[in-house]
């Protein structure tokens, strides 16, 4: 073999060794990434399965909650534990305007029927309502004065 060829052979050996080393390093990195990906995929599958399980459990709880709120069941419980409470009747519903008006007795003729009071008591109710209205106005007026004083 000539001297030039020997030099070429040495250079080749260095190149081959370097290439082989590079191959090994790259191979190691690729396999590491691959196993990392496999691990994460498995983890994702586990978490997804857990989420599905929690969703299923939530559905069961929602169904159970709906069942517990069944009107028949609630009525049964109310009758058992709240025997003194009755469903609200229409005559018990009144608006704010009606509270402050003088016509409250006209709207509620059943008051007279229930209490059996005479016309005199109607006048007292009317007077009471008017007095109450005056008190409310007076109270509101003093509140307004106080508020204005604070601001000035």
């Amino acid at each position, binding site marked *: 073999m000539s001297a030039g060829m020997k030099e070429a052979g040495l250079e080749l050996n260095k190149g081959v060794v370097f290439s082989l080393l590079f191959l090994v390093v790259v191979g190691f990195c690729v396999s590491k990434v691959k196993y990392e990906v496999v691990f994460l995929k498995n983890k994702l599958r586990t978490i997804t399965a857990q989420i599905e399980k929690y969703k299923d459990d939530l559905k069961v709880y929602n169904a159970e*909650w709906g069942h517990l709120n069944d009107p028949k069941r609630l009525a049964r419980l109310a009758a058992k534990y709240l025997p003194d409470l009755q469903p609200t009747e229409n005559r*018990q519903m009144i608006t704010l305007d009606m509270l402050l008006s003088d016509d409250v007795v006209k709207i509620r003729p059943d008051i007279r029927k229930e209490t059996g009071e005479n016309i005199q008591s109607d006048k007292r109710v009317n007077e009471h309502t008017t007095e109450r209205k005056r008190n409310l106005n007076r109270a509101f007026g003093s509140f307004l004065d106080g508020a204005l004083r604070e601001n000035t």
Partner: protein
Amino acid sequence: MGSKLLKKLFCSLLEGFALWRNAKSHASVMRSLRARLIFSGACGIVIFSGITYRLADVMVINKFRVQENRAFKPEEIVQKADIVDRNGELLATSLTTASCYADPSVIIDIEETAKKLSQIRGLPNAEKIKAKLGDRNKHFVWITRHITPEIQEQIMDLGLPGIRFQRDYKRIYIHGSLFSHVVGYTDIDGIGICGLEKQFSDELKAKKALNKKLITTLDLRLQSIVYEELSKAIKKYNALGGNAILMSVDGDVLSMVSLPDFDPNDLRHVKIETMFNRNTLGVHEQGSIFKILNTAIALDSGVSQLGSVYDASEPIKVGRFRIKDFKGKNRPLNLAEAFVYSSNIASAKMALRYGLKVQREYMQRFGIFGKPELELPECGRPIIPAYWNETTCMTVSYGYGIAVTPLQTLATVTSIINDGYKVQPTLLYSKARANTSTEQIVSKTTSEILRELMRAVVCFGTGKKAAVAGVSIIGKTGTAYKSRGKGYGSDGNRQRITTFVGGFPKGKPQYMLLVSLDDPKPTSETHGYATAGWNIAPTAHNIFERIVPMLNKDTQKDESPLKVVKYLRLDS
């Protein structure tokens, strides 16, 4: 040794290359190089040809044989979306379960497998399982559906080959029979059989994919109240059954009850008659309820006014039949009195005055001739008389000779009292938002007068027992004999359907109710009467009394029918 060989190979290649470069004329060297290259190439071609052939063999040539050997994968069962009421309360939902199936083609010992499985509680007996596993060509047979986790664990512990599980979904109806006719039910595979489940079978699957729910216009609280009161009435008056619909004037169906009913969670012992939705399928003559339509036609056509008089002194003879009044006044009645006292004679004469052509036109406008539209597959068509002659005109005026469903009646009456604007009932909450009809079937004036007349019925007429203090309830009662083949049966042997249709408040009605009882019996409390004023009107009162505090924002307005009162002789 290997490294020496490698080194030798490299050196010879390099030598050859150097020789080629330096001594191109050396033909023998060139020839040997060429030969080596050809040989290496040929080897490569042979190897890769073999690989390509094997790939083609596996992927294309023997494709079908390969597929047959693959493990069978059953079709995935699709979950359905929840059905909720207008307040978000759950009515129907799907819960995840497991279902057990077998692949008979891979089972080793069928008899042993069937014997072991049959020992688990809840599974079929050994003979049934053996019959299912008998066909070896099959890859999928159900063993049992919707098993509990405990049973699933027991089956898995057996370790039987060919026995597998599939993720399945069981449809649960939270409130049992409360919404049975409206929501309907599904079969074991989740396929809708009736009701909303059938109507929206595909949409429910699509909505689940989008994580949405099917929102209905129903209200759980109102449904419960109506259900309870109707059940009490059926028991009290010993009726065969009953039905009720509560609807807002926008068309939202808030409640729909039909009794008897069934539990969609347990269909093993269900009787077929309990599955009949009386509201949408119960086509029958409505009786005096139709006087609302008759009076509306008379007023709207301009033929009659509130004070128009009709002689109700004597019955009308039609062939061998007589049109007569129940507890008639036996005197001339004006239109207002005819309505409040529910006179058949006056109604017939009213109809004759405006004529059968006008009657048919208005009935067409009211939508009586067509099939009612609602988001349920079970909607019955009306039965229209084949020949519409003068006799038909008279009988239709007081609700006989034409049969419609309660849904259709309620929709028509609601349209009339809603300032005449047509109301389309709906069960879907989203659709209800855009339910603003501009089609007017009667004028506003006619609508107002009808509201006054219906208020008068509740204040002074047959609907007195439906009145609720503090609310201006409007209504009309109707008692119709049930048709039994030819005729209605002999006296004392007739069955009735009593109906009340009404709403509140009079000034601008917001809610309308129709409630019916099928064949209520007279009781001591009703003094031997079984007409609508004695049984269905009190039932309507009970329902109104409970729902008014929940719905009525405009409380404490007990309005009298001032426009109509002056036409009524209340002392007779």
